[in-house]
């Protein structure tokens, strides 16, 4: 249907406007991260662009500089505050290690399991799929309570060793994301006709060869999309990370510590929040094509 010109222009304006509304909180957040404190807390007016931009919030959270040190250097009066409390480099490292580790473990299991579920008939296959799906119904708080006890007993929660903190979170993130990755990978394997494996095997390839040399390369895009989703879900997880470990802190948990009894450090919160969103933005744009399938656990294909 060809629309008349004026309607088309109207639609363009509406589309841009709606997208802008949804972008606004992100833009506002990014803007807040480069505002001086006086502009964030201005009670008389809303400060949009008439402020002197500063990178102090990034310097403190990402480089670990001390705010009072910077204030003295620049000769400006600013609130004091401990440097370590806002230095988020460790939290970023913790988040990266946990998210990448969880993604690797999840994908390693999901790829093989999904291939088996897609290609081989075995007893209990349907029951297994339902069980996997059923995990999605569990409120995280319901598993949290038993898990805290288990983790305490296993020394994964309060242990001083980083190893314990990393391992504990990685394991639970892998477990939490496995259903998603598994169902998603299965839907990608299901897309590859069975004739492909059969042809390979008639030509003398073993089951393993037909999997690794023929089928797996055909679902590369699917593997990437699943991995990105698992990464993002691990990167953004809050509840389990908050309560399951005391030895490490991931970024979403770290940000909450900027909420202090003397007031919220909005500048630092905004800076760390903006910085933490950037890797996810890049990843998600790379796998746009498979996003819908991923978010619906493979039940809708684009």
């Amino acid at each position, binding site marked *: 249907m060809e629309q008349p010109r004026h309607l088309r222009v109207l639609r363009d304006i509406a589309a841009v406007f709606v997208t802008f509304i949804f972008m606004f909180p992100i833009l506002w957040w990014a803007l807040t991260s480069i505002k001086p404190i006086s502009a964030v807390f201005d009670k008389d007016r809303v400060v949009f662009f008439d402020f002197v931009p500063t990178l102090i919030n990034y310097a403190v959270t990402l480089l670990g500089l001390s705010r009072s040190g910077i204030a003295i250097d620049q000769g400006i009066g600013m609130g004091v505050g401990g440097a370590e409390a806002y230095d988020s480099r460790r939290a970023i490292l913790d988040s990266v290690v946990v998210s990448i580790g969880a993604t690797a473990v999840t994908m390693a299991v999901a790829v093989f399991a999904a291939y088996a579920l897609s290609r081989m008939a075995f007893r209990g296959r349907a029951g297994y799929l339902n069980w996997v799906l059923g995990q999605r119904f569990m409120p995280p708080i319901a598993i949290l309570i038993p898990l805290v006890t288990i983790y305490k007993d296993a020394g994964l929660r309060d242990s001083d060793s980083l190893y314990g903190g990393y391992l504990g979170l990685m394991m639970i993130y892998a*477990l939490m994301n496995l259903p998603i990755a598994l169902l998603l990978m299965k839907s990608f394997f299901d897309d590859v006709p069975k004739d492909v494996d059969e042809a390979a095997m008639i030509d003398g390839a073993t089951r393993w060869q037909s999997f690794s040399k023929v089928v797996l390369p055909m679902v590369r895009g699917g593997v990437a999309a699943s991995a990105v989703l698992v990464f993002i879900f691990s990167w953004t997880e809050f509840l389990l990370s908050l309560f399951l470990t005391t030895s490490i802190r991931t970024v979403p948990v770290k940000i909450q510590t900027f909420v202090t009894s003397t007031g919220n450090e909005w500048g630092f919160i905004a800076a760390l*929040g903006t910085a933490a969103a950037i890797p996810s933005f890049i990843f998600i744009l790379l796998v746009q094509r498979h996003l819908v399938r991923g978010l619906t656990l493979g039940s809708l294909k684009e």
Partner: protein
Amino acid sequence: MVIFGLYPLLYAIWLSLQRKHPVTRKLSFAPSYNWSKLLGDERVWNALGNTLVYTSAALLLQLILGMAIALLLDSDRKGYGLLRAMMTLPLVIPPAVTAMMFLLMLNGSFGVLARGIIATGLLPPGFSILGTASTAMAGVLLAEVWQWTPFMVLIMLAGLRSLPKEPFEAAAIDGATATQVFFKLTLPMMSKVIAIAVLIRGIDLFRAFDYVKVMTDSGPGTATETLTSYAGRIYFGNADFPYASTIALLTLIIVIFVSFVFMKAFKVKL
């Protein structure tokens, strides 16, 4: 994985059958104690009501907005691909961070959104949206709807793009109006997609925790207390693990039951 998933569940069920002694903190077997306490606990009913309001309001808003925006952005013309890509960005912000974002923007004295609303004269100056019982839920819903409407948009777009072209061409020849096309063609043909979207989103909404925890911490009072946040409060406040487990299990039972009925009624298969 079966064991890993099963063990916490069984443990939670076992816990729900225990009674925690308030002084000695010892657990003793009392199978009906928590469950009968649950039925008589007004806060559970309040939390259930809040959860239902939260879930249905968010679902409805996200569904309508999602469909409208998907129709708006479903175009092959230049620039629309970019708009669609931008629309997905809210999805990857950590919910705990989104909650902080809206906490700042809804702050009565310096939040940009709150001041925008105050400037229209709807609310008195300095009004705290999240600190007032009657508006706190709306404030939390704002964050929820902002973050997850893009999810609906994406799914609806995928659905719209997979529709066959012929019925629409035939309708155009027959001179059907845009409204007729939407209600008689688009909506019925999209029913499967919509059902899947409602199911997945509904399950997540019913278990929602992050926004409530960060933005209002179930308050003011119990105005925004949901089942999961109540369970969290019991668990971390009173350390009454058995009762917290019972509430969490109640949530699980409701989610499974409603999803099951929904899947049967609408013939949805995930």
